[in-house]
C-alpha cells in the first residue's frame, strides 16, 4: 500500500514537471477552454445534480444545464473527461484521461483536481461513491483507485482475481525473475474496467473488456467474474425492470437476472456498439450507441430504432427535472425532436 502511494506521489510530481516544461510561456490552454463549440463537440457523459444536469467531455469540458441552456464551466484540466458522478446535488466527481479525478462541492459550478497522473498513460472510465468519504474509480487495463477520505488520497488497487488463469501463472513466474518487467506487464494485463454501477441490493456490478462482467458484495474489494457466452467488450450496464442489462461491442446486449444465472441475448436490428442505456420514469429503456443509433426496448425486449444520426456516436443519455431526455456524443448535446 505505502509503496503504491509513494509511486503516485512520484507520478504526480513528474506530471507537474512535464506539464511545466511543455506549457509555452504565452500560452495557457486552460485560458482558451471556454469556447462556443464546447456544447457541440465530443461530450461523453451527463449526470443529474439535483435539479440541474452536468455534462463532461473532451478537453476537460464541463457544461451545466440549469434552465434548458447549457453553459460551459471552466474546469481545472484539459484532459478528456469520460464520466461524471453525483452522490447528491452538491457532491460530484468526474474522471478522465491522464488518470484525472476532479471534484465539485457546489453541484458542478466549480471544480478542483483531486488526482491526476499523465504518467500512468491510462484513462479512468468510471467513478462511484458509496457515501461522502468512500468511493472507487476504475479505468483502462484494470486501473482501480479507492478513497476513504472523500478523495483527498487515492490509493491504487490491483484486482488480481480478474486476471485470466494463464496470466496469473505468467505473472507469478515473472515476479520471481524480473521485478521491473513484472510491474510493467502487470499494468497491462487486466481488461479495461469500463463501467461500475451499484445495484439495488448494494452489490457492485462492473463490466469491461473481453466479456468482463463481475460482481462484488464488499464495495469492490474483491470481484467475482460472472461468466456468460460472449467475449467482446461490454461498455455499460443498467438495472431495469427487475433485471440487469449489459451491453457492448457490435450490438451485443444481454439480459440477466440479479443472480446472474439466467442469460438471454437481446436481438438488435443493428450491429453498432451500444455505449449506454437509460430508463425513463415512465419505464422506457433507451439504448444508445455508435453510428448514431438510439433504440427503444419495450417490455417484451423487442427493439425499435428511434433514430439513426449519421456520422455521430452517441455515448450518454440522461433526463432533466422536466423529464426531457438529453443525449450526448461526438457532436455534443442534443434532444430528439
Amino acid at each position: 500500500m505505502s509503496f503504491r502511494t509513494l509511486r503516485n506521489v512520484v507520478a504526480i510530481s513528474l506530471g507537474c514537471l512535464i506539464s511545466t516544461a511543455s506549457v509555452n510561456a504565452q500560452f495557457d490552454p486552460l485560458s482558451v477552454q471556454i469556447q462556443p463549440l464546447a456544447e457541440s463537440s465530443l461530450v461523453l457523459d451527463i449526470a443529474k445534480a439535483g435539479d440541474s444536469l452536468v455534462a463532461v467531455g473532451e478537453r476537460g469540458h464541463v457544461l451545466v444545464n440549469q434552465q434548458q441552456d447549457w453553459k460551459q464551466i471552466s474546469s481545472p484540466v484539459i484532459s478528456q473527461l469520460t464520466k461524471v458522478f453525483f452522490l447528491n446535488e452538491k457532491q460530484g466527481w468526474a474522471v478522465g484521461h491522464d488518470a484525472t479525478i476532479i471534484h465539485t462541492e457546489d453541484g458542478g459550478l466549480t471544480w478542483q483536481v483531486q488526482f491526476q497522473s499523465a504518467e500512468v498513460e491510462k484513462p479512468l472510465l468510471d467513478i462511484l461513491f458509496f457515501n461522502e468519504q468512500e468511493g472507487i474509480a476504475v479505468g483502462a487495463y484494470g486501473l482501480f483507485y479507492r478513497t476513504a477520505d472523500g478523495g483527498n488520497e487515492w490509493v491504487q488497487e490491483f484486482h488480481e482475481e480478474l486476471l485470466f488463469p494463464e496470466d496469473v501463472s505468467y505473472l507469478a513466474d515473472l515476479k520471481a525473475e524480473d521485478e521491473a518487467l513484472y510491474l510493467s506487464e502487470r499494468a497491462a494485463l487486466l481488461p479495461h474496467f469500463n463501467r461500475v454501477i451499484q445495484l439495488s441490493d448494494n452489490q457492485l456490478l462492473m463490466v469491461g473488456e473481453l466479456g468482463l462482467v463481475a460482481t462484488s458484495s464488499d464495495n469492490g474489494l474483491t470481484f467475482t467474474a460472472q461468466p456468460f457466452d460472449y467475449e467482446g467488450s461490454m461498455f455499460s450496464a443498467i438495472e431495469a425492470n427487475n433485471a440487469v442489462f449489459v451491453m457492448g461491442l457490435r450490438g451485443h446486449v444481454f439480459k440477466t437476472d440479479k443472480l446472474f444465472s439466467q442469460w438471454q441475448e437481446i436481438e438488435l436490428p443493428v450491429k453498432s456498439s451500444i455505449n449506454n442505456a437509460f430508463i425513463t420514469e415512465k419505464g422506457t429503456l433507451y439504448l444508445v450507441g455508435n453510428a448514431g443509433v438510439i433504440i427503444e426496448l419495450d417490455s417484451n425486449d423487442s427493439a425499435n430504432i428511434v433514430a439513426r444520426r449519421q456520422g455521430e456516436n452517441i455515448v450518454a443519455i440522461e433526463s432533466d427535472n422536466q423529464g426531457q431526455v438529453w443525449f450526448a456524443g461526438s457532436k455534443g448535446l442534443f434532444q430528439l425532436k
Partner: protein
Amino acid sequence: MLEKLVNGFETHLFRNRMWVILSFILITLFLGYQASQLKMDAAFSKNIPLNHEYMKTYTKHQKDFGGANRIMVSVEDTSGNIFNPEYFDTLKKVHDELFFIPGVERSQVKSLYSPSTRFTEVVEDGFAGGPVIPADFRNDDYGLNVVRDNVEKAGIVGRLVSNDYSSAMLTAQLMDFVAKTDEEMAESEGAEKDITTKPLNTIQFAKQLEDQLRGKYETDTIKIHIIGFAKMAGDVAEGAKGVLLFFLIAILITAVMVYLFSKSLILTILPLVCSLVAVTWQLGLLTVVGFGLDPMSILVPFLVFAIGVSHGVQMINAVRRRVLDGQNTKAASASAFRSLLVPGGVALLSDTVGFLTLLAIDIGIIRELAISASLGVAVIILTNLILLPLVISYTTIKPTKEDPVKKAKIENLWRSLSRFATPKYAVIVLISTAILYGFGFQQASNMKIGDLQGGAPALHLDSRYNQDTFHITDNYSITTDYMTVIVEAKPEACTYHSLLNEIDQFEWMVGNTPGVESTASLASVSKRVNAGFNEGNPKWQVLPRTTASLVQAVGRVPTTSGLLNGNCSVMPVFLFLKDHKAETIEVVIAKVKQVAEQLNTDTLQFKLASGPVGVMAATNEAVSEAQLPMMIYVYGAVFVLCLISFRSLKATVAVIVPLYVVSTLAQALMTWLDIGLAVSTLPVIALGVGIGVDYGIYILSTMSGKLTQGMEVQQAYFEALVERGSAVIFTGLTLAIGVSTWFFSALKFQMDMGILLTFMFLVNMLGAIIILPALSAIFWRKPK
C-alpha cells in the same frame, strides 16, 4: 525647341509619306500574321500573387500536398439512387476516362473505384477491412449491396458519395507540367530537345473534361457536374469568346457615332481602320513578346480601339477645321499633325505610363494586362498620330460649310459651358464637388475587398459552373471554401504527443472562430483512429500518451489524405469556411495569426496558407496592399507628365483634382453596386485615370497657350471648347460605348469592369469640362 523638332519631323514624314505608309502596311501584315497565332492562355499561377508570404508557403509545399489546383466531378443519377448497374458502369468509365486525361496526377484520383478508397470496421478480434469496391465486384444487386454497406463503413458519405446517395464524386489533382507528345518532341529544337514536359494547357484540359466526360456520359438519367479551377478557366475562356460579338457591336456603334460627328464616309473609315491597325499590332505584339490572350486582358483590344478612335477623332476634327479655314487637305493634315503630336503624344504617353504602373502589382495576370495595355496604347501614337494624318493627306476633303444655325447653337452651348470658368459658378461647382467628394470618400471607405458572391466570382451566379458548384456544396459535406494552415515541424514530428497536442489545440482554437464550419488535421483524425483501435469506443478519442499507440494511430493515416507528408515533418490543418467573403477570410486569418503567434516555437511553426481560400486570402491582401501604391504611382506619373507638358503647377493641379474626385466616386460606386476590389477591378482605377487624364490635357493645352497670352479664363476656356470641346465630349462617349458592351458579357468580372470603366470615362469627361474650368477660374483669377 520642341516646335522645331516637331516641324522637322513633320517635314520628313510628309516628304516620304509613301514609304512610311508602305512600311506601316508591311508591319501590319507581319503583326497580323502573329496575331492570328495568338492563343488563349489561363495558367493558375498567373492569377495568384506568387511572392506573397502565404503563397511562398503554398509553393513550398505544393509538391507534397498538390496545392489548390484540383477538380471535382460529381456524377449524378437523376433517379435519386446511385445503386444500380447502369450507374456503376458509367461511374467506372468516367473514372477511367478521367484517370487517363493528360494533366491528371494519376496517384491522386479519388473515387469509389480508386483502390485507396477503403473501409475498416471493428470486429471482436481487431479490424476488418478492404476496398469499398472489392476486387471481385460484380455489378449486380448482390455486389451493389456489398458496396452500399462498405460505403457506410468507410465513412465516405458526404465526400465520395452525396449525402442522399444520388451522386458520387471523383476528385483529381492537376499537374503543372505534362509530358510532351512525340510530335511535340520531334518539333522542339536546340536546348528544348532535352525538356520532355510542357506547361499544362488549362483551357485545352477544360475542353477535354467537357468533351470526354460531360459530352460522352451525360444522358437523361446521368448528369455530370464538374468544378475546379481548370474547369472554371475553361468556362471563362468560353465566355470570353462572346467578346468578339461585343467587339463588332462596339465597332458598329462607334462607326455610326464617328459618321454623325464627321459627316464624311472617308473620315469615318480612316480613324476606324487606323484604330484597328493599332489593335492588330497590339495583338501581334503579344505573340511576339510570348504572351497569350487571357480572359482578363481580352478587354485590352476594346480599350485600344476606343482610345485609338478618340484620338483619331481629334485628328480628323483638326484636319476638317483647317480645311474649313481654306487649306488643302495635305497642308491641313500636316498642320493637324504638328498641332496634335505633342498633346496627343503626352496624353497617350500618360496612358501608357498609367498602365505601366500596374507592373508594381505582383500578380502575373495584372502584369500581363499592364504590358499588353501599355503596348497597345503606345502603338496608337504611331497609328493615329502619324499614320492617320499621312493617310488623310492622300484624300480630298470638301469643305462642307457648317450650318450657321447649328453652329450658333453649338457656340451657345460652349458659351453656357464657359460660365463654369467664372468665379461665381466656379465657387458653386467647387463646393458641390467638395460635397460630392466627401460623400464619395465616406462610401469609398466601405469598399469591400475580394469576391462578394458565392461560387466562382468570374462567372455569373446562374452559369453552369456555379450551378455545378452549388450542386456539389449542397449535396456533399464538401466545400470548396477551405484553406489549410501548414504546420512545419521536425521530421517524425507526428510521433511526439506534445507536438500533435499543439496542433490539436491550434485546431480547436481556430475551429471556434466565427466563419469556420469545421476543421481537420492529423491530430484530430488520429484521435478518431485511436478510438477505432480501441473498439470504436468514443471515450478513447484522444491522442494517446504512449508513443507506440500514437504511432499506431498516426500510421493509419495515409499521406494521400493530404494531412501529412512522407516523414510527417509537415502537417496541414484544414479549415472549412462558410463562404469566401473577404470579411470571413479576414476574421479567420487574424485568428490564425494570433493563435499561431502563441503556439509557434522553434520546433513547430503554423504557417499560412494553402487551399483555395488561402490563395484568395493572399490575393485579397496583395490587392488591398497594392491599391495605395498603385494610386500613388499612377497619379505620380500623371503629375510628372502634366508638369513637363504644361510647366505649370496650377495647370497640373487643375487636371489632377477632377481625376482624383472621379476615382473616389468610382470606389463609392463599387460599394453601392457590391463590386469588390479584386484582381479584375483593381486595374480599372489605373486604366480610368490613365485614360481620363486625356480630356484634361486636351482642353488645358489649348487654354494654357491662350492664358499665357493674357486672355481671360472664361474666354480661353470658351475658345478651347470651340476647338476641342466637341472632340472631347465625343471621345468620352466613344470610350464609354466601347466598354459598355461588356455589361452583357457572360463573365461577371467583365461586366464589373465594363460598368466601372464606363463610369470613369463618362464622369472624367464631365470633370474635365466642369470641374477643370472652375479650378482654372480660381487659379488664374487675374490674367497675367
